[in-house]
């Protein structure tokens, strides 16, 4: 089963807005889905320049961009992706 990739931007704007704390999101995931998730730190993709539509921190879960990301939003997106993949 392919893992759900969670890409977390570690660029200046995203980091200042809290992406550093999101890097340890794996620890906050429920144990039963932790193994299906892989966190990857990435560089600024430029999205932070558009605050109206992509407020930092910017995170992408299985290719879907989340602006103004926080733990809750990421976990939700992970769950949705897992369901989409008929995992549970």
């Amino acid at each position, binding site marked *: 089963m392919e893992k759900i990739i969670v890409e977390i931007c570690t660029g200046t704007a995203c980091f*200042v807005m809290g992406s550093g704390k999101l890097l340890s999101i794996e620890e906050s995931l429920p144990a039963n889905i932790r193994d299906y998730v892989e966190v990857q730190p990435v560089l600024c993709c430029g999205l932070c320049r558009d605050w109206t539509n992509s407020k930092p921190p910017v995170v992408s879960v299985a290719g879907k961009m989340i602006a103004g990301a926080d733990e809750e939003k990421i976990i939700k997106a992970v769950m949705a992706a897992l369901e989409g993949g008929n995992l549970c």
Partner: protein
Amino acid sequence: MSYFIEVDYSQYFKDGQSIGGDVFLLSRGEERDRIICTLSDGLGSGVKANVLANLTAHMAQKYAASSIDMVKSAEIIMNTLPVCRERKISYSTFTILRMENLKEDKVRTSIVEYDNPGFLLLRGGAYVHPEKQRQELKRPGAFKDENLFHTELELEAGDRIVFFTDGITQAGLGTKPLPLGWREGNVKEYILDLVENRPDISAYELASAVTAKARALDIYKAKDDITCASVYIRKPRRLIVSTGPPIDESRDERLVAAIRDFDGRKVIAGGTTAQIYSRIEGKKLQVSLSDFDGDLPPCAAMAGIDLVSEGMLTLNRIAEHLETRISLHELPHNSAGRFLKLLLESDRVRFLVGTKINDAHQDPSIPFEIGIRRSIIGRIIKALEENYLKETELEFI
């Protein structure tokens, strides 16, 4: 080819004394074309010894900088020193070292020694024993034979000179394992081992290792002032720090070429700059959490670049650390620590600063004050030059 010459020293005062009878002075010519240093050990310890040694060292520095012959200057110094009433001697030992013509590929060096343990010359991992000219001083009332030793040398890259006071050779004197003290032969062996294990050891680290060992032999209560000075001649270590994208894209290639063709170590500070390099050079760029401590953004790895870090936050932190004179031993274990290590291990640092304004940082709602790139780099340069005596270059692109 112009060499870089490291000169440094390390010192402990005799236990319980807050002032030392060993004095080390160093001066560099304005053009960085001449270095003069003197190590002097005044009779006794404490204030009197300090005055003697200081007088000697200051005179030595002055004379060695003038056109007067080094031996002649040494004689003048000897005759000028005040005479100790009890022992009828004016006494302060010294080693004066003068290095010149630093721009050629040989460094012309004169050394004059009076009664300090002889200097050591290390070349290619072994001691070399250059011929010393002995000069007898005939001072009226001298209590013993007084000999000056004068050595003329041509130093080359890799050469090291180490000299010290008798607090080193006599360390441990009277202790069970070393009734006669550490002694020159053992000191030499210790230094040789140090250099063998760490061929790139800096002048400062070498001198500190020697004084630390001597103090340990004195069971951590130095019985005399302990001073070791060391000189290391080497090719300059160069570093380029590229930060920020060029003002317009047409200059991207130039930026990349400047980094790629640089002869030395390389740092890219800034994600956008790193991505430009990665795209044009076709090199993979991968963020790595190995030095991540949650405090500063993580570094990335890219072939051919020694360190890829985030830009503004990291540079800001670097400036703060340099302004408080952080030393190599205190570096944090994060991207700033790795960055600082590269800076402190370099002699010449070239900053290549992109002048494009990064729109993300212009957003007024970003809740912190971010100094503009130029002013942060300005602070780093000032601190590197003033606090660490590094040479720097600055280019805007």
